[in-house]
């Protein structure tokens, strides 16, 4: 597993990049802004369209580059699909997109099925689905790009001060290996809390490493090798030896307090 040292400055920089990327930018008067989103996978007639670009804005989800006649707008307010004339889609140098004028009348309606948006356009079946879960070694940037909620969770969390003080003064080089699922609700809640705590500790001796596991990971090689039976699992490693692990969220208290306790009691 590749490692990534999480330091406050780097995290702030990453945070600001994604803050820009996930919020709709200001647009000129009369223009409706859209911001790029990497959340959706686009398939047309069963084949993934890798060139497709997706943008989110107030009117809905804008699809570009998916080999349809015009850009498509998916409107959640009335669950319709509309075209936007090509000349009404304006792209700025930062990659943001704005729409001028109004879209066409609905060309069809969409349906949601099993977490997917499905519609017909030009006689072809278009399917939008959330991107498949992350798998393998990850960086914090990749995780946030996949799930922007991680960023707000990190930003808004107020860590346990006593635990952060302990972590900030910890002297032994330690890898904090986080085995998680990008699909897992418990991970989405608890992993950002741990990240924020380690960031707040500003201790270069503590290194966060992320390994994303697929759904139904019990047959996964990494999970088997590490004896992972659930996610998140946090493994503390010093000098290439496991000194302790936290299986899931702590039974009580915070994640950072549990990690601090493990370091206090298990370190050689």
């Amino acid at each position, binding site marked *: 597993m590749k490692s990534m040292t999480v330091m406050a400055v780097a995290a702030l920089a990453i945070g600001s990049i994604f803050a820009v990327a996930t919020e709709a930018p200001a647009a000129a008067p009369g223009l409706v802004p859209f911001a790029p989103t990497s959340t959706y996978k686009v398939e047309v007639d069963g084949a993934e369209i890798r060139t497709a670009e997706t943008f989110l804005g107030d009117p809905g989800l804008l699809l570009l580059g998916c080999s349809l006649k015009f850009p498509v707008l998916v409107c959640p307010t009335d669950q319709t699909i509309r075209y936007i004339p090509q000349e009404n889609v304006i792209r700025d140098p930062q990659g943001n997109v704005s729409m001028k004028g109004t879209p066409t009348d609905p060309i069809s309606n969409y349906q949601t099925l099993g*977490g997917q*948006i499905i519609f017909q356009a030009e006689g072809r079946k278009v399917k939008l689905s*959330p991107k498949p879960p992350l798998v393998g070694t990850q960086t914090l940037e990749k995780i946030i790009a996949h799930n922007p909620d991680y960023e707000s969770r990190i930003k808004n969390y107020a860590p346990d001060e006593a635990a952060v003080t302990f972590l900030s003064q910890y002297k032994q080089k330690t890898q904090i290996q986080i085995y998680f699922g990008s699909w*897992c*609700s*418990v991970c989405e*809640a608890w992993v950002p809390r741990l990240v924020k705590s380690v960031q707040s500790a500003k201790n270069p001796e503590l290194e966060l490493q992320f390994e994303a596991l697929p759904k139904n990971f019990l047959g996964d090689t990494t999970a088997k090798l590490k004896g992972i039976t*659930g996610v998140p699992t946090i493994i503390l490693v010093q000098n290439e030896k496991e000194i302790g692990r936290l299986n899931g969220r702590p039974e009580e208290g915070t994640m950072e307090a549990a990690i601090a306790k493990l370091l206090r009691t298990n370190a050689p």
Partner: protein
Amino acid sequence: MVSLLRSLPAVALGLVFVAAGLLKAVDPAEFTRQIETYGIVTGPAAVWLAYLLIPLELALGTALVVGYRARLAAALTGALLVLFMGATAYAWSQGKTEGCGCFGSIASRTPGQVLLEDTAFLALAFLAMLLHRQGLSWSRWRPAVVLCVVLAAGIALPAGAYALPIDSLVTDLKVGRQSADLPLREAPMDLSKGTFLVALLDVNAADSRETVKRLNLLNGGQTGATVVAFFGGEVDEKTIFCFNTNPSFEVVAAPRADLKRLYRKLPKFFQLKEGRVSRIWDGVPPTPEEVS
């Protein structure tokens, strides 16, 4: 005394079945969902099976407790347990188990634990068959009446379960309860300070858009309450739900088994004031006046 000891296995097993039957009877939709997760019976067949098993469990349990045809009842109970174990083993072999792999649910058990538990009950059923000698002395008509009453209750109770105001008895959500005691540890904010309107939602419900529209009106503004919605499921379900319904508030995915402790039927809403549950609403969100 010896006779009493001999009837202990039957009574113990009977109490377990009566308790299990009652718990299923007050939330038959959940029992139906559990049956469907085994992947053997689905749709209307699962509903029928649920509504058949509930009175059957209650009747067998009652017969064992009162000692009426206890050996026959123990044999039938054992057969039912073998059936349950077969279904659990099949579901396990197909990978159709409840857990998502997330740690966090304290209520759910692994299929292995379920099989172990059922094996213990099966042993009780065998003991009941071997040891039981005689039960209460019955006149001819009494057992028939008791069984009819239990069977009728087993049919009527699930049918009218959700109309009964028993949520505060059978769930952990009660007025006065502290937020720290609620299974909402995935909340991205401190629920113990300020005023919150907590919504427990079914993201697949047909009327989700209308519910979210109402909740958007309640979020902040004049109500002074922050809305936060929880649903039992995985993170990717949230993406499409939020796109479709456009909530102006935080939507939190949480382990379903945790949230299930708070409701029998969704949606459900409750107000938290300074960390205490102050009001609870079922079915539709409260009005701004009710929240204020």
